[in-house]
């Protein structure tokens, strides 16, 4: 449905120029939820803004439903934009309008009748769960509520596509989840295709069917969520998946020694991969090698049959047994680092 073809964009500032997008191509199928992930400055915001031509690419094409957007006149483009909803990190609600009037804005632009606006806006406010806030001004709303209003506004023209520009980045984790839930609902109930950008892997995991990874203006990988996650060779993807740092508990950290000593046990950080399940790994340690251990921290994610994530293990066997365990990890290509001895 959406074809982004060889898009490039360079920004020129006084003497420097910065290539924000470099020959990016991506296609999105109807009804899909596609997430583009990248660090800040990777070009993801520029990319999503080229889709409705808020940012005009220097070269390349944006083809949506068979029309090349880069070739449209500004009037035609305005018409096409009405069928593409967009929400933003900072919500961008008009402070001078009530919740109701904010949602009504896109309908007013099309000179829809008052009765029709009334009907439509109330219906939309119901979808996003804010019927009782219709006459409030945005300043009295919380961040999550503001984003809901923005979503209602984006849906007012019955779009076939919703663009989300870091829509949850300014929200706390619980609110983020509720907004993502709403997006998933909209996708399923109304069949609206969603293209979102984010720097949070959590967002991708929560809603996206397809993922694209962007870094330094280039699209590094695209595919289904599990395809991307299992591509662990890619350093950028790895950074996103294993972004959580395993902090060592403070009490233990104080006692931690760099070199092995008698009576001290190794503290090991393990990166799980698809080769071996976490249950298998732990039972091997305990049943086969007879090593007692403390599992200090675990962050495990299951995707289909495979699991990914990190463990922080405090092995408490004898020196020889602990060595065997590390040998076992290495044999199974499980990355492990000894953080110290305690």
């Amino acid at each position: 449905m959406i074809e982004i073809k060889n898009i490039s964009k360079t920004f020129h500032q006084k003497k420097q120029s910065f290539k924000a997008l470099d020959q990016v191509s991506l296609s999105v199928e109807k009804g899909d939820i596609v997430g583009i992930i990248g660090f800040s400055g990777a070009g993801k915001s520029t990319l999503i803004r080229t889709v409705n031509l808020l940012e005009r690419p220097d070269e390349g094409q944006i083809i949506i439903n068979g029309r090349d957007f880069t070739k449209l006149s500004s009037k035609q483009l305005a018409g096409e934009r009405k069928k593409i909803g967009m929400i933003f990190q900072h919500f961008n609600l008009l402070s001078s309008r009530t919740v109701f009037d904010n949602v009504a804005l896109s309908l007013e632009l099309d000179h829809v009748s008052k009765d029709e606006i009334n009907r439509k806006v109330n219906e939309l406010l119901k979808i996003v769960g804010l019927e009782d806030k219709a006459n409030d001004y945005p300043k009295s709303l919380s961040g999550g509520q503001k984003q809901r209003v923005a979503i209602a506004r984006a849906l007012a023209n019955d779009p076939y596509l919703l663009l989300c520009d870091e829509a949850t980045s300014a929200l706390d984790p619980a609110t983020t989840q509720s907004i993502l839930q709403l997006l998933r609902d909209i996708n399923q109930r109304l069949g609206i295709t969603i293209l979102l950008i984010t720097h949070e892997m959590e967002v991708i995991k929560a809603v996206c069917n397809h993922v694209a990874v962007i870094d330094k203006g280039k699209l590094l990988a695209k595919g289904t969520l599990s395809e991307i996650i299992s591509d662990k060779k890619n350093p950028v993807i790895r950074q996103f998946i294993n972004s959580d740092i395993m902090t060592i508990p403070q009490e233990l950290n104080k006692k931690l020694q760099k070199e092995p000593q008698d009576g001290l046990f190794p503290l090991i950080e393990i990166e799980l991969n698809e080769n071996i399940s976490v249950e298998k790994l732990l039972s091997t340690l305990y049943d086969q090698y007879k090593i007692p251990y403390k599992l200090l921290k675990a962050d495990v994610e299951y995707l289909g049959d495979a699991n990914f994530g990190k463990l922080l293990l405090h092995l408490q066997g004898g020196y020889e047994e602990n060595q065997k365990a590390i040998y076992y990890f290495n044999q199974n290509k499980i990355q492990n680092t000894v953080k110290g001895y305690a």
Partner: protein
Amino acid sequence: MLSDSVIALLGKGLWETVYMTFVSGFFGFVLGLPVGILLFLTRKGQLLENAAYYRVTSILVNIFRSIPFIILIVWMIPFTRVIIGTSIGMNAALVPLSVGAAPFIARLVENSLLEVPHGLIETARALGASPLQIIQKVLLPEALPSLINNAAITLITLVGYSAMGGALGAGGLGQIGYQYGYIGYDAVIMNVVLVLLVALVFIIQFAGDRLAKKFDHR
């Protein structure tokens, strides 16, 4: 202390000053608002970015702003005669007052619009709004509290300008203060004129603040 005739004189003067201030304020906005909007829209990075338009408009505005008002009145006399038929009286004063206020208003409007977060313009574009719709539905309503504040500043400036015009035959409190105070040296009348002018300025400022607050939902 003040005779009836003096009170009548002051009343008439006050009315003339209020009339000149508000009517020229109105025409000042009629001239200045579109220019201010044009200045804003043609700025770098804005909707109708156009360096040449911006430069030319900006220079014209600066030229008119740098002419001292009292010189402007005299300089405009032939033009005023053509439009009003005379260069004396409060209606004649409206011409230089409006023309003098317009570039000032244009700059204030430009600044008010600059305060509107850029994301809102972007959102309106994403919704498919035309530039005219963006001005009508986003820029002006969002900038309204700031525009009202600037209108108050403009009106207060015009109170001062109209008093200056009084010295050149425009009428109003300025002329009374000038004739009775400077030429006749009647301290009482001069001070009453002063108090009236101060009161007028206070009322405009107060009303402006209240109104701006009423429309401010930020």
